[in-house]
């Protein structure tokens, strides 16, 4: 057991390989590691995309009854390769009856009807709140790890998270002024996972200072007034046809920020997982590179101070 754990820790936290490589290494470890001698291997089903990620990081595919179909999408799911080898469900009560799992992991946004149905059918149900901070990530990871009987693997994943965070903290660098929003047009609001990751990456989202009922992406006027060094746009915003707001298409935004824009992949901020710090690391590298390379002079912040 101790030996297995050491191998896992090496595989997970070993040389820093970037998030994608780290995931492959972890998936490999989960596959190759000898199975513990369970009296009866626990079969786990997950009804929430973020719960899917944790379940797949903690358990070999053979022990997973099904995960949501959302997790097969490479755009949002960190574990999409693994998910494609596992049966898919659509987060419904009928799926649970079909799969007959020993444990169901759901999110707090799983439909109340499904959750109450599962409770009345006496399924073992674990409901995970969304993880918005690194503390949330540590807590939910251990919650799932304990529930599926893999606390050691859970601790190894958290050790990886902490190590990456430490690496981020030691190389502070000058703070970057950024304007960040996601592909639905919401700003990276303070307290959100997106904001947590930006902060870990050493970026200050100047566009989200507005208080109230949450914040949407800044409008062009505000962007000109703030003149952030880098725009961080949620993934499909600039890349996919038809899925962007007017902001990304505005001639002024393109004129000043086309060589100052970093695309944050949806995998970076959709679900908080032990690999979220790796996302911050890669985001920081991109932001620094683009901030030093940018040639376009920003609009005249000085003559229009608020």
């Amino acid at each position, binding site marked *: 057991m101790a030996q297995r754990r050491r191998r896992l820790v090496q595989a997970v936290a070993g040389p820093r390989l970037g998030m994608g490589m780290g995931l492959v290494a972890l998936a490999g470890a989960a596959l190759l590691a000898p199975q513990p001698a369970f009296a009866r291997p626990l079969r786990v089903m997950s009804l929430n995309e973020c719960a899917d990620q944790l379940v797949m990081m903690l358990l070999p595919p053979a022990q997973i009854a099904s995960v949501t179909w959302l997790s097969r999408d490479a*755009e949002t799911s960190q574990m999409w390769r693994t998910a494609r080898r596992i049966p898919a469900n659509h987060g419904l009560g009928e799926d649970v009856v079909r799969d007959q799992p020993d444990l169901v992991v759901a999110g707090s946004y799983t439909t109340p009807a499904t959750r109450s149905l599962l409770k009345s059918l006496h399924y073992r149900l674990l409901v995970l709140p969304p993880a918005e901070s690194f503390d949330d990530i540590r807590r939910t990871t251990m919650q799932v790890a304990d529930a599926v009987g893999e606390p050691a693997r859970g601790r190894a994943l958290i050790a990886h998270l902490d190590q990456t965070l430490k690496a981020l903290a030691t190389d502070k660098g000058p703070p970057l002024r950024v304007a960040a929003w996601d592909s639905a*047009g919401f700003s990276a609001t303070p307290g959100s996972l997106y904001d947590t990751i930006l902060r870990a990456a050493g970026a200050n989202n100047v566009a989200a200072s507005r208080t109230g009922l949450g914040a949407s992406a800044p409008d062009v006027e505000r962007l*000109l007034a703030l003149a952030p060094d880098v725009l961080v746009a949620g993934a499909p915003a600039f890349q996919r*046809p038809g899925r962007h707001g007017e902001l990304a298409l*505005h001639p002024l935004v393109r004129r000043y920020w086309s060589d100052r824009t970093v695309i944050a992949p949806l995998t970076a901020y959709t679900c908080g997982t032990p690999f979220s710090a790796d996302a911050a690391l890669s985001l920081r590298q991109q932001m620094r590179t683009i901030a030093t390379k940018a040639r376009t002079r920003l609009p005249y912040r000085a003559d229009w101070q608020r």
Partner: protein
Amino acid sequence: MRLTLLIGLAALAAVLAVASLLAGEVWFSPGQVLRALTSSPPNLTRLVVLDIRLPRTLLALMIGAILGLSGAALQGLLRNPLAEPGLLGVSSGASLGAVIAIYYGFAGVVGWAAPVFALTGALITAGAALLLSRGGATLALILAGAAISAIAAAGIELALNFAPSPYAAYQITTWLMGSLADRNWDHVRLAAPFIVAGGVLLLLSARALDVLALGETQAESLGVDVGRTRLLILFGTALGVGGATAVAGAIGFVGLVAPHLVRPLVGHRPSRVLVPAALVGAVIVLLADIITRLVHIGPELKLGVLISLIGAPFFLWLVLHVQRRTAA
């Protein structure tokens, strides 16, 4: 009286248009704007006024005007105080067209895809309503329009139902709320030709509308081609409202409210209502757009939401008022 009203409304629209150039994230004083426009090195104030606020102001003027004008023309044509572009399915047809363009990604490939799709949707729904009601009376046109409108609305909901991702669904939903934020000159260039063409067609129908007020049979006997008038008004509405919906999303109630606001002042002759209603429509949309910029309660307050918020109570008052008047 009518001339003073027209001048007054035009002056009000002009004042609001200037205010719309000054209001926003940062308030400018008129002097500041003049200095910025005349000084030679490009500066931020000039950039904001010319490239952000001016196209937005022009769009608000044009869209408000075409909505008010088409509402007035339709109320005249159908001799029904509740007529507006939404009633005949033109608005929902345009929305469905634009949603299809956004949803399947055409809108990102070519800039004019969303307006062209919106226009096509508007023309199809208007055409279908016209065809289905052929031979029937005005009531048939209204009922056919309501049915077509429901079908188009179901189409939009179907697109939302099968949205490829929650983000796409969210974007379609917010787009449908209607907004003029972050629009630029490209949008003006896209929408203006259609709105102007639609407006001209609607104004051409003015004389026929006056005669139509006497009733369809009487109008026919006086030499008015009722079928041609219908075609003119529906086509004009489809062009204008299609173009407006394509760049701003769905904005309701302006077409319903604007004619009713001017009718007490200019009388009930349909041709006299057209131009004042267009001006009132422009004033409403301009004013609402300025308010959306001043309200900071978090995410942007959408233009269409704000107008409906004011328009719906007015609609209610209208229904009650008409009821009382017909009962008396």
